[in-house]
């Protein structure tokens, strides 16, 4: 099973270092517009959500592409765009429910997360560990653990409340 990007919205501080690192790594310039990852912000609520390609198994972008430029790389579990085939029609941008594919209007091509060929730079540089590169099963384990902790906390509270009453 391939590794995936696991994003913890609670940890993200909205510093946008990942955006900078991403554009430097891929394009050689600091330009958040060319970044494959984007931190969506609700500043007044302190809510920050890093958004990137979800590397869907049955991806809408793959299905809509009229020239079959988008394919799945099973080794790394990612969806890749062949820029030689891409005609820049932006159908994938229109159909992606996560806004994962972007159009680079300067070079007239589609850019999307390619997991940095197995070494995601956003993960490397994220100070607070809001983005992690983990095995797909591990995401489930982490989430299960979090849910279990929450649940057991509630149980403990209930138990202590009962103890107080009795």
């Amino acid at each position: 099973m391939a590794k995936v990007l696991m994003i913890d919205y609670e940890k993200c501080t909205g510093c946008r270092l990942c955006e900078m690192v991403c554009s430097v790594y891929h394009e050689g310039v600091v330009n958040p517009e060319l970044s494959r990852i984007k931190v969506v912000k609700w500043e007044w609520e302190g809510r920050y959500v890093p958004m990137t390609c979800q590397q869907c198994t049955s991806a809408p972008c793959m299905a809509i592409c009229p020239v079959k430029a988008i394919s799945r790389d099973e080794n790394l579990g990612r969806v890749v765009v062949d820029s030689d085939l891409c005609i820049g029609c932006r159908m994938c941008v229109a159909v992606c429910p996560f806004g994962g594919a972007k159009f680079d209007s300067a070079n007239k091509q589609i850019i999307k997360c390619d997991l940095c060929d197995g070494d995601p730079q956003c993960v490397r540089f994220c100070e607070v560990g809001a983005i992690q590169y983990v095995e797909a099963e591990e995401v489930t384990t982490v989430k299960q653990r979090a849910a279990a902790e929450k649940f057991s906390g509630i149980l403990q509270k209930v138990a202590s409340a009962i103890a107080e009453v009795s």
Partner: protein
Amino acid sequence: MNGILPVSVLEPAAEQTQRQAAEIFSRKEKEAQPDVETIKAQLKEIREYSSANLPSLVNLFQESVSKYPEVKVAVAENASQAVSYINEVAGDTRLISINKSTVITNELRPGLESAGFKVYIRYFKEFKDFDKVIQDYWQLPGLSSQSLGQSFEITTKIAQLKAIEVRDYIAVVGVNAVSAEDGQVFFLQHFSNISEDLNEAKKVILVVAIDKIVKNWQDAAFQTKCNGIFGLESMTLDLESRVVEQYDFEKLPPLPPGQKREVHVLILDNGRSALLSGAQKDLLLCLGCRACARQCPIGHYFVGGGEVWSPKSYLWSFLLGTNPSTETCIHCGRCYVECPVDIDLPTLMWRAQFEHYARHGRTPKKRLLDYPELLAKLGCLAGPIANWAIAKPVFRRLIETMAGIHREAHMPTFHHESLRKWASKRKR
């Protein structure tokens, strides 16, 4: 108003979808998204209002767009008036770039070409050569059910037509929607042909067919977005590298700086207000998304070259008299299913054809083919001879030229003895 006509271009963009998805990810309680039916209902309301108040909206739009001092406004009753206006505006310039709007490609292009203009659709130049893979609707994923609502957003607001690289050509572009209240203009594009034309052409002529006028700018923006949502699949089907004469506008040398640019708004009626009192009134509900072309079984026959084809434009050009018949339509009703505003195209199609025959009469060939009973009787009389003749390619070619039945069409086998005769001969 400060004298600058606001022109907005909507494009597929990631920001809004990203934001929406992030909202869903991070919020505990999820808000209901507008589904396709809600979007359709809202769109239908806009279109019904627009078609019911057509004359007053036209006047209002004309009034509000005249308030912009830099914009010249003209009204054309029909295509030839529009062409002569463009000819007047053009002066010495003979090069025209148009967009893929059916108003321009079907209604104005022939007139412009015969007036001596060189007309190119810049859109087709944008794509590299490629092998088209999507052949028909069935290969496409079902998209309308997905939330495409946030996919098309205003990305370019052209508040002022910048004069950086002005080239010596004229852009005749058909709009997607305009607002009657303040004259705002909206375009949908999924490459960059329209914004380039708006930025570069020496003279920009915005052609507003009167059914594109809606109440306010919110409605106009929504309608333009719906053009993308419902027309997305037919856009994909229409992506084809075509063998059409193309022109590299980027090779045109920029004119010296300090050029004055002109913006014209051409309000085109071309038979649309005449629809109001007729049986084809429903056609005014059309927003021009070309969703009807998506599943059309006869569509493949017409698409190709530089034309932009849809069942609606097929009927419309018939009503305008540029297309001889609507007989190719098989009235399967798929366009009716696809249409976001429920225009019953098949019914309108046969009604238009019926009225045409009632007024102009039928040709003898058509009269003959309209009586299959008679043809069958004749065939039965001729019996085995007819079958023998039908099997011969020579005769089929003859039939094709005389009656217009294709030589590969499947033909019935005739029996000399009719069923009734055969039954009466049979002993009980």
